[in-house]
């Protein structure tokens, strides 16, 4: 499977920068997945969860409050305001989960959007 570069930038620095298979993003007009060679696109991101399929087959979830994404054929750049990443390798997954939920709840998004995102985070937390 072809890989593409994914970069997630927050005001506190770059939190993710690696080759990935696929990434699913919470766009403001609905969730969408991006594979390599996607058409160029700029989109607003809503409160939600970014799901990353890493090159080694492992999955990472990143809870975000809001931001932008720029998709190019070879590279996807997410610019987000606040993010908490969750992965199966986390030594303290429950703390990360809590942090992710607090972040999601602190946003101004609608209650349903927050609830969806929180339940998604919980689901992902269980799957690890």
């Amino acid at each position, binding site marked *: 499977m072809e890989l593409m570069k994914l970069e997630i*930038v927050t005001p506190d620095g770059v939190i993710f920068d690696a080759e990935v298979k696929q990434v699913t993003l919470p766009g403001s007009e609905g969730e969408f997945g991006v594979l390599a060679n996607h058409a160029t696109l*700029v989109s607003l991101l809503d409160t939600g969860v970014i799901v990353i399929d890493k090159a080694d087959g492992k999955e990472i979830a990143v809870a975000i409050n809001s931001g*932008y994404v720029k998709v190019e054929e070879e590279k996807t750049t997410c610019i987000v305001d606040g993010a908490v990443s969750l992965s199966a390798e986390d030594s303290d997954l429950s703390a990360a989960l809590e942090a992710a939920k607090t972040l999601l709840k602190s946003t101004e998004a609608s209650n349903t959007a927050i609830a969806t995102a929180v339940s998604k985070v919980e689901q992902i937390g269980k799957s690890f």
Partner: protein
Amino acid sequence: MANLKEIKRKIGSVKNTQKTTNAMKLVSSAKLKRTEELAKRSRVYAAKLTELIEEIAQKMKQSNADGIDNIYFKDIENPQKVDIIFITADKGLCGGFNSQTLKRTNQLIAEYKEKGVKVRLRAVGRKGIDFFKFNGIELNNEIIGLSASPDFKKASEFISEVAASYVNGDTDKIILVHNGYVNMITQEIREDQLLPVDTSKLKLDHQSTSELEVEPDDDDTLLDALVKRYIEYTMYYSLIDSLAAEHSARMQAMDAATNNAKDMVKELQVKYNKARQESITTELIEIISGMESMK
């Protein structure tokens, strides 16, 4: 003898000052390191954000023959009302750091006044507020505490208010002045035009190779959101930059003060030794002459 005591007291007090300035220097250098790290991390974010704005602005420019049709991008040749935001430190003892910013701000005010432009001032930092208050110049905003510990939320609240007055038409142009960090020994006055977005600074000449899709399908919404984020971030970044510069300026000032104190102690020590020698000589002469007269 009184002189001797006096000098000794002076040496003690200078030594104490030296200790204080040295401690302040150490504190500043530790703080500088932390702030520098913060600035470095947020620089990436700022760069990406600017890139994105360039891209969108470029797209709008291509699809629109008469430039970019957005309130944040309109080009005003003769602004009638200008807002100047300036950032100074809350504390002094940092050399010419604050006065440089104030000097530049005053220059700007004079320039605009000459052109008959109305100027409003928005001050961040106690030193700037004190200066203009002392001179009896009115300030629109007085924010204390933000320049000593930059906080994204507070910075964006403040700048949103300023941006709102721009959208209302209360002001035509917003300028941000601060003293920025270059390296450990140099600071530089930076002047940014926050609004309208300075298109001459964006790289808009390149032709985008592929058609850019935008979601939501309305360029304006996205651009509005982006520009808002952009100015919020510029404000926040300027605060960090200014803080780093403040610490580096204070470090320098305190280093110089410590060195001066050291020189002063040396000088005083020589003076003290001389005085002591003098008094011993006088005493000896007195004793000898006393002995002489007893013979």
